[in-house]
């Protein structure tokens, strides 16, 4: 048994009750690497693996890998998986460390460099937005990082945070992208504008020659990767300084001159552009808080828009835009199954880094600067839950009485399965996606009613199966060495086009059966079909059939009130030949949903 191996491979990949598909490409649930020394210095204390594993769930994080015996701690990394796709603040060393630090009792940090409504900080520089950029990518937020040179660990972390934010939160740079520059080289004010892609050229990172924007999209690796974002845009965003020198071509690539940052640089410009102002602003706030936690000094930059935004025409970043969310403490108690006083709820929120006020029974929670995930008062409830400690909630035995039952089609299916087993058939279960070759061509059918996927992973999984028979023949095609006779069946779903339905398709529960041996003939198929119908309480009514999958004159339609609900007979040798099957086969398929009481055909 390979349970251990299974453990490692499967636990992460088999997430369920989870809209987020598998993490194969890290598309949805980010996995980050944190530098061990930097991480624990930011947490303020060291943990061993067991302690860390126990604490990480408060940030909905899991320890993925930590090789504590390799190399020295300054170079070692800890791999951590983050499950909350709505908490981008946790996707960095500083952000995760902050959550653990506060949960363990440290005070909620102050970030005095944030501007708030009616309480603006003074900007050290200015970015001017040109009206031309409103269409392709209207928003920009920026600030200065200064105070000490950037370290290797911090630079790596910034790059990682930038990648996770732009990829996971920014939808592959569509809604957010980020750039970092050395202030010393920049002449202010910086201008954010849009230009036609052939009108400007500059030397991008990872290149040694000047290229136009069009050339970058065509020839540069990053250009090719992200060209889709600017598809169909006549003008492309560009960030230039007051002399016209290019800083970057958002969201594609930085300039090799102004936009190259290395270890030891100090006084950096951090800039984020995007299509959604709250997202761009929040991402800027997250990066600013991360630098501040690591001991850097954050200086505000003002952005002047020529058009109205939700935050006005002048926005000084970092900018606090979040609104407090108020909830009745009784509602917290009702949802969590345990009474909470407002004071108790506020204590729990504080452990989550959430500041709050109290108004009678109401608790008003202010999201931290780096979070914007309080959509509804219930989001505050979850923070109370985690702050209180999951382990402190005692499971309660359910007490509402309800009657359990299986669906009528499930019960009928079981009856059908019992009969087929009694007739000597082995039950099979198959996948529902397959190729046009298997479902259509090899079956000798036109395939007009077959549901095709417009974005198949491969042509092997391009169609939804319209019938169980091709699945059964797939088995025959790979089972010539299995001792005969073969008798196999499946009761399962099929789906096919149906113009009368709202979805243009219909899903039905069907029985498919197939027998293969030297003497398989029509009489056997007819006997099995008749026995099945007899014990299901149906008349054995059959009629002529002209199904191209069966031999003409050796097939019959199963009729119910005169309408066909199935077919059985000898499989056509042309079909068998298509599958490379050289043993005679009989088969049948019946729509068992028509046999349910009250079914439409009755």
């Amino acid at each position, binding site marked *: *048994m*390979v349970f251990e191996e*299974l*453990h490692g491979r499967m636990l992460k*990949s088999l*997430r*369920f*009750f*989870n*809209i987020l*598909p598998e993490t*194969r490409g890290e*598309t*949805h649930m980010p996995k980050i690497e944190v530098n061990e020394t930097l991480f624990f210095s930011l947490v303020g204390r060291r943990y061993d693996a067991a302690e860390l594993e126990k604490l990480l769930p408060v940030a*909905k994080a899991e320890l993925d890998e930590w090789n504590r015996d390799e190399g020295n701690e300054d170079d070692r990394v800890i791999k951590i998986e983050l499950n909350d796709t*709505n*908490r981008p603040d946790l996707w960095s060393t500083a952000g995760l460390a902050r959550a653990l630090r506060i949960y363990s009792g440290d005070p909620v940090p102050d970030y005095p460099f944030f501007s708030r409504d009616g309480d603006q900080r003074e900007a050290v520089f200015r970015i001017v937005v040109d009206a031309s950029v409103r269409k392709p990518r209207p928003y920009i937020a920026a600030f200065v990082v200064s105070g000490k040179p950037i370290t290797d660990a911090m630079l790596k972390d910034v790059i990682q945070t930038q990648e996770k934010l732009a990829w996971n939160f920014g939808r592959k740079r569509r*809604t957010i992208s980020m750039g970092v520059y050395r202030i010393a080289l920049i002449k202010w004010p910086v201008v954010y504008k849009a230009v036609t892609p052939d009108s400007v050229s500059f030397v991008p990172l990872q290149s040694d020659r000047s290229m136009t924007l069009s050339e970058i999209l065509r020839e540069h690796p990053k250009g090719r990767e992200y060209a889709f974002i600017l598809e169909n845009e006549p003008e492309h965003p560009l960030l230039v300084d007051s002399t016209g020198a290019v800083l970057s071509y958002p969201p594609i690539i930085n300039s090799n001159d102004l936009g190259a940052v290395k270890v030891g640089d100090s006084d950096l410009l951090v800039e984020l552009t995007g299509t959604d102002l709250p997202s761009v602003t929040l991402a800027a706030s997250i990066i600013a808080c991360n630098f501040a936690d690591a001991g850097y000094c954050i200086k505000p930059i003002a952005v002047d828009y020529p058009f109205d935004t939700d935050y006005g025409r002048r926005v000084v970043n970092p900018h606090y835009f979040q*609104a407090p969310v108020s909830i009745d403490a009784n509602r917290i108690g009702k*949802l*969590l199954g345990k009474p909470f006083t407002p004071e108790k709820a506020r204590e729990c929120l504080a452990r989550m880094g959430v500041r709050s006020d109290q108004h009678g029974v109401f608790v008003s929670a202010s999201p931290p600067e780096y979070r914007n995930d309080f*959509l*509804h008062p219930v*989001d505050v409830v979850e923070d109370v839950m985690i702050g209180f400690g999951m*382990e402190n*909630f*005692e*499971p*309660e035995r359910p007490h*509402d*009485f*309800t009657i*359990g*039952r*299986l*669906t009528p089609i*499930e019960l009928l299916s079981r009856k059908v399965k019992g009969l087929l087993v009694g007739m*000597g058939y*082995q*039950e*099979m*279960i*198959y*996948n529902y996606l397959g190729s046009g070759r298997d479902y259509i061509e090899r079956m000798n059918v036109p395939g007009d009613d077959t549901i*095709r996927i*417009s974005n198949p992973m491969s042509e092997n999984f391009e169609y939804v199966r319209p019938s169980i028979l091709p699945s059964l023949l797939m088995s*025959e095609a*790979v*089972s010539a060495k299995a*001792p005969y006779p*073969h*008798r*196999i069946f499946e009761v399962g*779903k099929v*789906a096919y*086009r149906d113009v009368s339905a*709202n*979805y*243009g*398709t219909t899903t039905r529960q069907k029985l498919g059966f197939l027998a293969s041996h030297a003497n398989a003939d029509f009489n056997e198929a007819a006997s099995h079909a008749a026995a099945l119908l007899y014990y299901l309480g149906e008349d054995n009514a059959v009629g002529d059939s002209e199904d191209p999958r069966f031999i003409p004159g050796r097939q019959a339609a199963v009729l119910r009130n005169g309408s066909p609900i199935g077919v059985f007979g000898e499989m056509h040798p042309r079909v068998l030949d298509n599958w490379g099957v050289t043993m005679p086969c009989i088969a049948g398929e019946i729509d068992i949903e028509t046999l349910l009481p009250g079914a439409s055909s009755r």
Partner: protein
Amino acid sequence: MDIKAMVRTLHPLEVKVLNHYKPGTELSAERLVKELGYIEGQANQALNWLCGKELAVESGRVSKTVYELTPLGKEWFETGTPDERILRHLSEKGAARLPDLAQALAIPPKDVGSAFGILSREGALSMDSGKRAVLDTGWFEAAHSGKEKPRIVLVRDLVTRAAGEKGGILEEAGLSAAERTAMGGIAKKRGSGDAAFRISDRETVMFTLAAGCAEAVAALSDAGITGGEIGAVTQDILEKGSWKDSAFRPYNVKGKPARLELGRRNPYVEFLDSVKDKLASLGFEEFDGSLVETEFWNCDALFMPQFHSARDIHDVYYLAEPERARFIEQPHLDAVAGTHENGGSTQSRGWRYSFDRDFTRRLILRSQGTVLSARQLPTAQVPGKYFGIARCFRYDRVDATHLSDFYQTEGIVLGEDVNLRTLLGFLRMFATEVAGAKEVKYVPGYFPFTEPSVEVHIKHPVLGWFELGGAGIFRPEVTEPLGVKVPVLAWGIGIDRMALMALGLNDLRELFSLDIENVRLRRNMTR
């Protein structure tokens, strides 16, 4: 095995040989055919079985030439050889021209010609002036009284003797020199269709009965085994009651029985059924639905923003045709759209974007079982418990841990007073009742449609801790637009991993194996 036990396993064919021959006798299958009336297969079986019990040993192999009567030879035996028929005709009907002979006897003219040539050389026939063949009666009498038998008589003897033998076989060793010469003219090795005999070389295996046979015979006698015991109990034996005077031959009951191809349920489906039964027994009602769904029910109704990264073209399968449902049911569409845009009447701030009513009709293959829970909400009872095991589709390369389509087990609980602790109670119930776990723990989780969200982990005796499922309380943005005013607990269980454990497999693809033999031989490892 001692001798007493051993003799009980002897087949009557062996018993008869032991009782009939003394130790040291040299036997062949042929001899048993001749002397004991066995058919060849029985004789070979008896000798091989005796060898297996060391009651006989192979003592050598003898190669010999045999002549086997062909269908033509058999015809000669019954209706006469061509020579005999020519002579008989001439004797009875008088002299005749060769073409007339050929026609009268229905023998090809060239065969009549060559027969005449040989017979006239031997002096039996001559040709008269009218070109008619004439019988030489003097030769005929002289030939029969002489010492040397003429060829025609030798041939008749050979055919007659062969017809009397089992299988129509004459051994070369049993023929005289003259007979061998005569045989040479009527036997062929190949193309024997037009010859009376087929020549073949046969190898005979010789066996010698071992000394131990004496002991075996004594033991047989002591045990009263005669070889006449009843084998198969037939209808005839029962009707006549003949079993009353006889003993039953004991069979070897430890031998490997023949394999049976039986009808059988699929272990994976049986496992899924057992989970359904268990959930029904816990008061859950099953739900089911269409494999094709809309963006609306698959994601929008679950309050996943339309720009959510899990809703990419690389995550969900789209239908090529038709691309969209004709309509989305009202008032759900308006209620859900409003909730996305600004929270509607749910106290939520919403996702703050413009809800795309065209996109929401996009047809997809259902990507998560939660779609069934969403669809159940508008008609769900309070209190109510529902579950479904739903086939879902994901945009993934197929390998040991990923399938194009697979099952998800999901459910919901509606009740005025259900809460986080009730949810933990249900999760504990699933852990113990469905997964058979003894230790359970819960950690905060994240799912876009529940708040709060938890993950349940259980301890497996071999695997250690692993995630059994995810759960939470549906966000009000999910329940309220669909008309539900009470809290709704939502949960899911990782059914595939449990199935692999139950079946002792480690590759998801094996759950849906095409291989008939693989499925037929698979055993359910649980209980």
